[in-house]
């Protein structure tokens, strides 16, 4: 009953504030009148009666206060009062408010964005049923194990201890499937790479994946539309069916429902779309994200037209490693148990599969891994930059918090007098502290709210940054609310603690010394000033390593971009045509490629055109064994078309390049690079020498020219010996060819023309992978570019925050000492001396910070050594530049307050209160 009444009157008081207050006022005043009357009756005159009555009452306002204090919800009134006052105080100091709020918001927002990303990449699980019971299957082997590898399995040859791979022969898949006790099911898959499509007469290209019949069932997915691939589809004799990805069905058919039942021609074979995968599904490898899923047993039919076709024999061949596998453990079976049971089976199988060729080489052994997050590819690619990012962000957050702390401490010092005054006129100490606390909380709240926005934008921005222009980037990082809450809590705590500390300090001391302060903030305690100095120094010290890292990354990027490639990358358009997949063969295939080349040269604005089996940079390299000068060596090679060296602008040192006169009927020729010549024909004239390719065609080539060395495959790797030969002379099978078109102006302007030309020649032939050479090279450096951009951005941010902190501290210092400065000037000190004193202090701070930061950097940069190229971790030029930047910026931050000190008018300063 009483609670209800309390709440009711509380509500009434809020809704009818003014009325309630007036009512109270009336009540007390009316009582005063009654008391006056009483006194008059007793015989006093009016004035005396009034005075006596007022004394008796104790003062109208006081009584009203006491009534208010006794009511429920008085805390609410005081809170409202505090908040209103706090807001007013914040508005009065826009600079301070902005800096603190922005600092906090950046700290919270950026931190959350990064961690959300980290979470998405490193921790996110596959969007399938119960991902934790999935396992991946890999094998490890010492170096020396030989096997035939096909398809795009994951092989890591870089480990010093040997080979790690996840591709297996198909018979092993059959073997593993027999383990009913361990696995509820096993599935196999293999990338189909680029598929040539014809949808409703339009030619196109899509990424495909061959999957076994149990793929979707094991993953526990429900179709987005239609049905998914089942074991019945995965038979050699079954009708070819396909399942599309959600995004692909939207793009090509306008919706998943519309795609079901449609017929599509894939690599020349008509296939029926039976269903669409659910929306969030991207396959088991976040980097792959296939558009079309096809049954594994239909691979021979679908690759019949390719130069590398999967034949029926592959399913039985014990030495062809080409399928990747994953499995789902039975409930109750652990990874360790499955590994212990399966590894011996695999080992035994491998032993029985030994042929005479690889007898004596080390055997691979099975390793199973946690499959909840799918394959590791994307994670490996991005985990490094993200760890670096995490460190940078942690540093920035530290600097930001130090900044906020410093500013709040400075504010606290300045307001000591105000606090003392308040206590004097009757505010309780608790009240004053609560007031200051409210201000801090308000600041932290604004910072938090803005931080949320920054976090959302940050995630979007990061996605853009890391995608680096790739169209189908599959990482959609979601905002991680826990991290947001943690960062917000941290900032709130910082705000409260550093806002509170001066409050408690200033309310504990004797009020008289505080009141006696003639100028605001003229405290004699040195402790707090020391803390602020430490904060500024630490901020500068933290900024220096970031600047150093940024400098090193920028230099690395610059080194990479200026690497001597050996050819001219400007104004070069690249694109790939796979006429074989579109149905052309043998001589007709080569005629088509040649024909197209001539048509391209006829386009206005095109200077030269050539073609090759792959682009020079960014697509690996071809290598095989050749017989030269009586020795068998392994060399790199490239199959090229006429005018290759002229188009790519690779100078020829001797003889000629591959050109029109090299036909299928003429003598097969080769052009070698200088390194090859030096390695194999040292001293002699290579022209006229012969070399033989030791592949199935076994052609003997005559050397007709020597070219200058170029980078081949990778910008970072040094040039190696290379043999070039004509693609139409039967040395190596012809498959897809990459055209290089040297244009007069921006290459991308010619794309439509190119597409038209190809369409006229053969409407079923799609133009794939259009890009400029410059862009392709940039793509190979995408990680370095990312690092450089991010580090620079963060370094600038850190520098800004640190210099703001420095400026703030110096500024408050001057304000504190204006009186002292005024006196000094009045007593005859030169303005120059004043400036020198003030500046001296600032410079001391900056220098201390720089020295500490420098020592830290020299040690810390070693951590990023693996990301650098062509530059050492202690590069003196970079560090000199960084130190210079910090000194200049620091000096500038001190200069503005110093100028203010210089302009002090002693009369004004002395009167300033």
């Amino acid at each position: 009953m009483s609670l209800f009444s309390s709440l009711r009157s509380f509500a009434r008081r809020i809704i009818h504030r003014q009325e309630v207050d007036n009512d109270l006022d009336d009540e007390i005043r009316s009582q005063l009148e009654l008391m006056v009357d009483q006194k008059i009756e007793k015989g006093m005159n009016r004035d005396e009666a009034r005075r006596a009555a007022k004394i008796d009452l104790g003062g109208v306002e006081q009584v009203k206060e006491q009534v208010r204090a006794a009511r429920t919800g008085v805390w609410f009134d005081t809170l409202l009062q505090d908040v209103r006052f706090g807001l007013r105080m914040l508005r009065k100091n826009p600079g301070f408010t902005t800096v603190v709020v922005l600092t906090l918001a950046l700290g919270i927002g950026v931190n959350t964005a990064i961690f959300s990303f980290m979470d998405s990449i490193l921790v996110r699980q596959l969007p399938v049923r119960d991902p934790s019971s999935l396992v991946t299957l890999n094998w490890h082997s010492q170096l020396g194990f030989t096997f035939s590898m096909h398809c795009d399995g994951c092989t890591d040859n870089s480990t010093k201890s040997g080979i790690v791979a996840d591709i297996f022969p198909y018979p092993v898949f059959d073997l593993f499937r027999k383990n009913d006790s361990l696995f509820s099911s096993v599935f196999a898959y293999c990338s189909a790479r680029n598929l040539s499509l014809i949808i409703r007469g339009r030619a196109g290209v899509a990424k495909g994946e061959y999957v076994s019949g149990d793929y979707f069932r094991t993953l526990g997915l429900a179709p987005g539309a239609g049905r998914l691939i089942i074991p019945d589809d995965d038979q050699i004799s079954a009708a070819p069916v396909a399942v599309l990805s959600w995004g692909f069905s939207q793009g090509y058919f306008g919706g998943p429902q519309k795609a079901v039942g449609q017929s599509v021609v894939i690599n020349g074979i008509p296939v029926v779309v039976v269903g669409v995968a659910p929306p969030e599904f991207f396959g088991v490898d976040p980097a792959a994200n296939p558009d079309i899923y096809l049954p594994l047993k239909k691979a021979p039919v679908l690759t019949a037209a390719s130069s590398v076709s999967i034949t029926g024999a592959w399913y039985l061949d014990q030495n062809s490693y080409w399928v990747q596998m994953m499995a789902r453990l039975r409930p109750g079976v652990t990874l360790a148990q499955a590994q212990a049971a399966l590894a011996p089976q695999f080992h035994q199988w491998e032993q029985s599969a030994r042929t005479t060729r690889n007898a004596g080489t080390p055997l691979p052994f099975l390793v199973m891994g946690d499959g909840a997050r799918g394959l590791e590819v994307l994670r490996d690619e991005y985990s490094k930059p993200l760890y670096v990012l995490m460190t940078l962000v942690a540093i920035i957050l530290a600097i930001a918090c130090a900044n906020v702390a410093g500013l709040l401490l400075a504010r606290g010092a300045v307001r000591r007098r105000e606090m003392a005054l308040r206590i004097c006129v009757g505010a309780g100490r608790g009240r004053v502290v609560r007031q200051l606390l409210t201000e801090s909380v308000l600041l932290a709240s604004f910072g938090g709210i803005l931080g949320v926005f920054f976090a959302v934008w940050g995630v979007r921005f990061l996605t853009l940054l890391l995608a680096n222009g790739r169209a189908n980037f599959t990482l959609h990082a979601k905002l991680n609310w826990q991290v947001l809450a943690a960062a917000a809590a941290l900032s709130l705590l910082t705000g409260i603690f550093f806002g509170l500390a001066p409050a408690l300090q200033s309310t504990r001391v004797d009020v008289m010394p505080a009141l006696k302060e003639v100028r605001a903030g003229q405290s004699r305690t040195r402790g707090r000033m020391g803390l602020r100095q430490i904060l500024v120094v630490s901020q500068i010290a933290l900024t220096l390593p970031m600047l150093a890292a940024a400098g090193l990354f920028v230099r690395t990027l610059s080194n990479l971009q200026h690497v001597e490639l050996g050819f001219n990358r400007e104004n070069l358009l690249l694109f790939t045509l796979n006429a074989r997949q579109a149905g052309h063969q043998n001589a007709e295939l080569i005629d088509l490629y040649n024909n197209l080349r001539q048509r391209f040269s006829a386009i206005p604005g095109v200077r030269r055109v050539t073609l090759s089996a792959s682009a020079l940079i960014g697509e690996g390299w071809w290598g095989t064994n050749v017989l030269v000068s009586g020795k068998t060596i392994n060399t790199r090679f490239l199959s090229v078309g006429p005018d290759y060296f002229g188009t790519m602008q690779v100078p020829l040192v001797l003889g000629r390049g591959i050109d029109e006169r090299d036909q299928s009927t003429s003598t097969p020729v080769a052009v070698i690079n200088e390194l090859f010549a030096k390695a194999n024909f040292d001293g002699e004239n290579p022209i006229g020498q012969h070399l033989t390719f030791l592949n199935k065609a076994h052609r003997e080539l005559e050397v007709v020219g020597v070219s200058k060395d170029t980078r081949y495959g990778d910008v970072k790797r040094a040039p190696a010996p290379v043999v070039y030969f004509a693609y139409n002379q039967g040395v190596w099978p012809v498959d897809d060819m990459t055209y290089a078109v040297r244009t007069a102006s921006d290459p991308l302007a010619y794309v439509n023309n190119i597409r038209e030309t190809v369409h006229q020649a053969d409407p079923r032939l799609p133009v794939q992978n259009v890009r400029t050479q410059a862009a392709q090279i940039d793509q190979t450096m995408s990680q370095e570019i990312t690092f450089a951009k991010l580090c620079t951005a963060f370094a600038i941010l850190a520098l800004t925050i640190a210099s703001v902190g420095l400026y703030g501290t110096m500024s408050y210092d001057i304000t504190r000492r204006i009186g002292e400065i005024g006196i000094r000037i009045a007593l005859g000190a030169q303005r120059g001396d004043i400036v020198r004193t003030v500046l001296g202090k600032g410079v001391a701070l900056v220098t201390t910070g720089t020295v500490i930061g420098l020592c830290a950097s020299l040690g810390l940069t070693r951590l990023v050594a693996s990301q650098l190229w062509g530059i050492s971790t202690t590069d003196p030029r970079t560090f000199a530049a960084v130190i210079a930047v910090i000194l200049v910026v620091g000096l500038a931050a001190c200069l503005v307050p110093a100028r203010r000190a210089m302009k002090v008018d002693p009369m004004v300063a002395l009167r300033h209160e």
Partner: protein
Amino acid sequence: MTVGQANLLQGTLDPMILKALAVQQMHGLRISHRIEQITKGTLQVKPGSLFPALHRMDESGWLSPSWGESENNRRAKYCKLTKAGQRQLGVETDRCCRISLAIARALEAS
């Protein structure tokens, strides 16, 4: 004895006010006079304690205030005891008696 802070004697102020109002509705000044009367001058309630107490009891639902005219035709706020207030008076009376009895016994015990 002047009722100042009312912390210690809050327990006694409430029943005094309720008792004073049991007879008829009154305004603030009269209530404090009445309390002085019935305690034979022992308790003098200052406005600073009386008014908060009155408002508190209003919130608890023991009084219902209304504006009216005093003897001298001045406006004043009159407080009337509600049914709940009457019940509370009985409860408070009980409590006070028990406590004072207990205190008296404790002080007399040797």
